[in-house]
């Protein structure tokens, strides 16, 4: 039997997404900003954890350090790594417009959606690093204070591991959300300020007005993944909240994933398609 080869248009050979992600990570690590943000994350995490640990058991402070609630509340210092993971994600995408390097990026890889996906992946990887290191700092300080006061660790190893995983997942997804925000806003400064304002101010205001909505706010959901209790800490997004439970791990992860994907899809359909002039 004779077969006839049907001529087809040769498919465009695409750079694999893993390589594109590696390129984005190489871009990140070849500048000083991510290192500065990581240093700021660790510094703020350490500072706020120490302050909370010192205030534990005092009037207006977290519960006593010997208690489960007190030790859990002190881990709220780790939220700074989550905030800065999102800020870092925003710089991954908005930096291309700030420094006008988008031209070179799209000349190398014309598929803008794939570039955005790689940036989101890179933002998630870098965000995860922020989350894990922040958690290790807050955990180390907490354990140090507990040991220093001669108390015993009230939280089980399994729970502490879960919170570490929560910091990793929460910060990774906030990193990807940051990439989406940076792509939509394009102005690096506006994106960074916007993320700070949302996380530090807007969620508190919205949560204050609509208590039941608190668990569904993205930053609050991310902190809940990391074990930050809603309503029991004197610092954090859930401060002052009452009678509201954090989302379960899977639901919180799904919520953040949906927000990240939704934001990235919106950016891919709108701002990312704009002319690069």
């Amino acid at each position: 039997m004779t077969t006839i080869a049907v001529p087809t248009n040769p498919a465009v050979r695409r750079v694999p997404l893993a390589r594109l992600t590696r390129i984005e990570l190489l871009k990140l690590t070849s500048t000083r900003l991510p290192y500065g943000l990581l240093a700021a994350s660790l510094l703020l995490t350490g500072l706020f954890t120490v302050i909370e640990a010192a205030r534990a058991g005092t009037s207006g402070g977290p519960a006593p350090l010997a208690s489960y609630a007190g030790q859990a509340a002190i881990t709220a210092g780790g939220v700074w790594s989550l905030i800065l993971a999102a800020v870092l994600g925003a710089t991954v995408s908005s930096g291309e417009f700030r420094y006008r390097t988008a031209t070179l990026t799209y000349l190398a890889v014309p598929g803008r959606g794939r570039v955005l996906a790689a940036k989101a992946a890179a933002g998630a990887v870098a965000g995860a690093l922020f989350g894990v290191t922040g958690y290790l700092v807050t955990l180390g300080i907490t354990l140090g204070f507990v040991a220093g006061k001669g108390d015993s660790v009230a939280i089980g190893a399994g729970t502490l591991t879960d919170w570490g995983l929560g910091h990793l997942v929460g910060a990774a997804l906030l990193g990807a959300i940051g990439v989406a925000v940076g792509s939509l806003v394009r102005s690096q400064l506006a994106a960074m300020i916007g993320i700070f304002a949302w996380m530090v101010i807007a969620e508190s205001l919205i949560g204050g007005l609509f208590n039941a909505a608190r668990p569904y706010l993205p930053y609050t959901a991310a902190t809940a993944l990391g074990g930050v209790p809603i309503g029991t800490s004197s610092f954090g997004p859930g401060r002052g909240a009452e009678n509201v439970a954090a989302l379960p791990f899977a639901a919180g992860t799904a919520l953040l994933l949906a927000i990240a994907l939704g934001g990235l899809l919106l950016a891919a359909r709108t701002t990312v398609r704009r002319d690069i002039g």
Partner: protein
Amino acid sequence: MAHIQIQGLVKRYGPVTAVDNLSFQVQPGTVTGFLGPNGAGKTTTLRMLLGLVTPDAGSATINGRRYAEMAEPLHQVGAVLEASFHPGRTARAHLRIQALSAEADPSRADDVLSLVGLADAADRRVGGFSLGMRQRLGLATALLADPKLLILDEPANGLDPEGIRWLRDLLRGFAAEGGTVLVSTHMLAEVAQTIDSAVIVHHGRLVVQAPVAELTADGTDLETAFFHLTRESVS
């Protein structure tokens, strides 16, 4: 060898028509000057050719394909559109990233840095570069994946006389090895000795496409011919 085809290209920005039904071709193995005053639509045309700006009408292809459809575009086309780089990145780091994008050997970064005379500045951050050095880095980026077509937008900006001579030799050498060059500029004196043919545009429209020898056949220089033709196109 690369062939560029621009056909009926239109781009409007609100009430302004930046490129108005523009058509021309660039033949393989030639150095073609894309000439016109500031605001003539040269940069917009090049950006449409390279898939960065979406045309309102018409088509722009390289070897019959739109840029976005090209396999391994950096191996086929080297482009310098603006001397913009991340200021905090070193020249070598920038080129290594580009090499990874192009799936080129990372050692090419040092090769092209030497080629453009920036070997000594390889580990300096680009933020401290002069405009001329950034132009050279742009050319190094364009040459990284050994393309057969160069598309350059005002590459002589910021170059000193020695740099302009170097650029001229580079482009002639590139064409002598079978490469194709489309170079946009409004600095006619700098390219007059370099280009084989000229595409002259004014107000987004084609004024003329012709070999330089034809434009200067009556003994006038390219600059005089340019001013005569663009004035005629307005009247």
